[in-house]
């Protein structure tokens, strides 16, 4: 198991620090078990996990929606219990479900959200926000008249209405069409560039792979890994070399057994799995031994595990 605690000292500018956080719901369900997590200022942090893993509970505690159990959480150096007013002022949340005031107009609901978070009215900022989210034309429309995608944009506008510096996006692209998803991620990148720290959960792991600087995987209430995305993929992702042979083989020669090669069904492709982290990958030796065995190949390619494959493996190990 790899947790963030070992890397804690290396994080020089933390914005969220979670220490030994536990949460047990009424009825005894233990949703979080000793969570240690540090989120850096200005990064995009992807929190991945299967349904019921504890992602939403963790986010809800940090945002003040769910009471914490034991442990501590600080946001920008402020404790979420003792200095709740400060921490909540700087946090924005886009919840997983579409929860909106159906009979309100877009404009009124966004102004309401800004006021709720203690900010004076700023119509110019809200106008720009709605324009950025392609909602300006819908500002006088009642929310119940909007499509699901538009409602999702309203949720984001509400979360950004008070100009938070830490933004939680809990499954922001669930049920969202491709175009909106693309717009949304473009906006997330712009927010990051403006200095906003973003913590997102998503079931679309290719999105996390594309967007995140760091990745945390949570399963059954435990944070099983927190790592730089690229490092995680290098460390845990298998890399494979595939060789397409000139002629099908009847079997693999005994001399190549040490490489753990796999021969495909047609017996015309060899797959070699190697570790990119080790000092020697064994590729040079393999190619030499193949030549010595008289096995020629016409093409070769390499492929690496996706974040999704790594995620599935991690969750399977923890099961």
């Amino acid at each position, binding site marked *: 198991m790899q947790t963030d605690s070992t890397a804690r000292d290396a994080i020089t500018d933390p914005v969220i620090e979670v220490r030994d956080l536990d949460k047990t*719901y*009424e009825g005894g369900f233990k949703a979080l078990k000793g969570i240690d997590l540090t989120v850096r200022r200005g990064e995009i942090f992807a929190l991945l996990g299967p349904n019921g893993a504890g992602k939403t509970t963790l986010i*809800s505690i940090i*945002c*003040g*929606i*769910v*009471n914490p159990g034991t442990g501590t959480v600080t946001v920008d150096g402020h404790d979420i219990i003792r200095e*709740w*007013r*400060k921490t*909540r*002022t700087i*946090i924005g*949340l886009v*919840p997983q*479900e579409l*929860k*909106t*005031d*159906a*009979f*309100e107009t877009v404009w*009124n609901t966004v*102004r*309401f*959200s*800004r*006021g*709720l*978070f*203690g*900010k*004076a009215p700023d119509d110019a900022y809200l106008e720009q926000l709605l324009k950025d989210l392609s909602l300006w034309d819908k500002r006088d429309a009642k929310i119940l008249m909007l499509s699901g995608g538009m409602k999702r944009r309203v949720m984001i506008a*509400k979360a950004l209405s008070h100009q938070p510096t830490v933004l939680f996006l809990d499954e922001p692209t669930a049920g969202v069409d491709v175009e909106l998803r693309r717009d949304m991620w473009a906006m997330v990148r712009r927010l990051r560039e403006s200095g906003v720290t973003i913590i997102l959960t998503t079931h679309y792991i290719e999105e996390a792979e594309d967007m995140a600087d760091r990745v945390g995987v949570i399963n059954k209430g435990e944070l099983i890994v927190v790592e730089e995305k690229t490092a995680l993929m290098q460390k845990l992702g298998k890399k494979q070399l595939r060789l397409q042979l000139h002629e099908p083989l009847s079997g693999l020669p005994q001399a190549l057994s040490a490489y753990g090669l796999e021969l495909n069904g047609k017996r015309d492709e060899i797959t070699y799995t190697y570790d990119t982290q080790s000092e020697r990958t064994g590729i040079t030796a393999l190619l030499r031994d193949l030549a010595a065995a008289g096995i020629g190949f016409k093409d070769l390619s390499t492929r690496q595990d996706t974040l999704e494959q790594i995620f599935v493996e991690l969750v399977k190990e923890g099961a």
Partner: protein
Amino acid sequence: MNLHGIRAIYKFEMARTGRTLMQSVLSPVVSTSLYFVVFGSAIGSRITSVEGVSYAAFIIPGLVMLSLLMQSVSNASFGIYFPKFVGTIYEVHSAPLSYLEIITGYVGAAATKAIVVGLIILATARVFVDYSIAHPAVMILFLVMTTVAFSLFGFIIGIWADNFEKLQVVPLMIITPLTFLGGSFYSIHMLPPFWQKVTLFNPVVYLISGFRWSFYGLADVNVGISVAATLVFLALCLTGVWWIFRTGWRLKA
């Protein structure tokens, strides 16, 4: 103090009244006017006066109080129940708002709406009956104390309720009977001695009695006791709300 937050909740709730004007304002005014017509004109022609006050004028404080209690409870309970029902309550929880600020916003709006309805009913009554207010300051005091106390009570009901039926049960099954049996349409001195004693267990008696005293100087119970009873009820509701926020009962997991 998050004044912008309080104002946001207050304005949001008041705007809802604007959207539901028929239900929020016209409906209670029309139904109370019907009471004036039926009780004031029909029955009033047979009961000419109660302790020197015309019957039509006598029932005005009770009818206003009936409306105040119903409106306070309904507005406040719906105000907090609806965001729970649709899930938008998450935003209030995650906002930098103290319990006091949340209550001020919701209860302030509910009490304001109830007072507005009460004042409209008083103005409407003037169309049917000639009445006077002997102690306007005390009348305002009762108006405010009662609406705030019952708005707090409604707030508790809204948090307790987990369906729309429960939201209606308390106003319809408890508040309305207590108000009808609390001297809205009669002086409790008109009851047999045994029922006079039983009626004193009805807290609404003290509210109506005190409110009526502010109009005509007539009271079923001492006005000081009425004020004290209202304050006790207010304190009980404040304690209940404080406990709810303290524990997160039915609000936070």
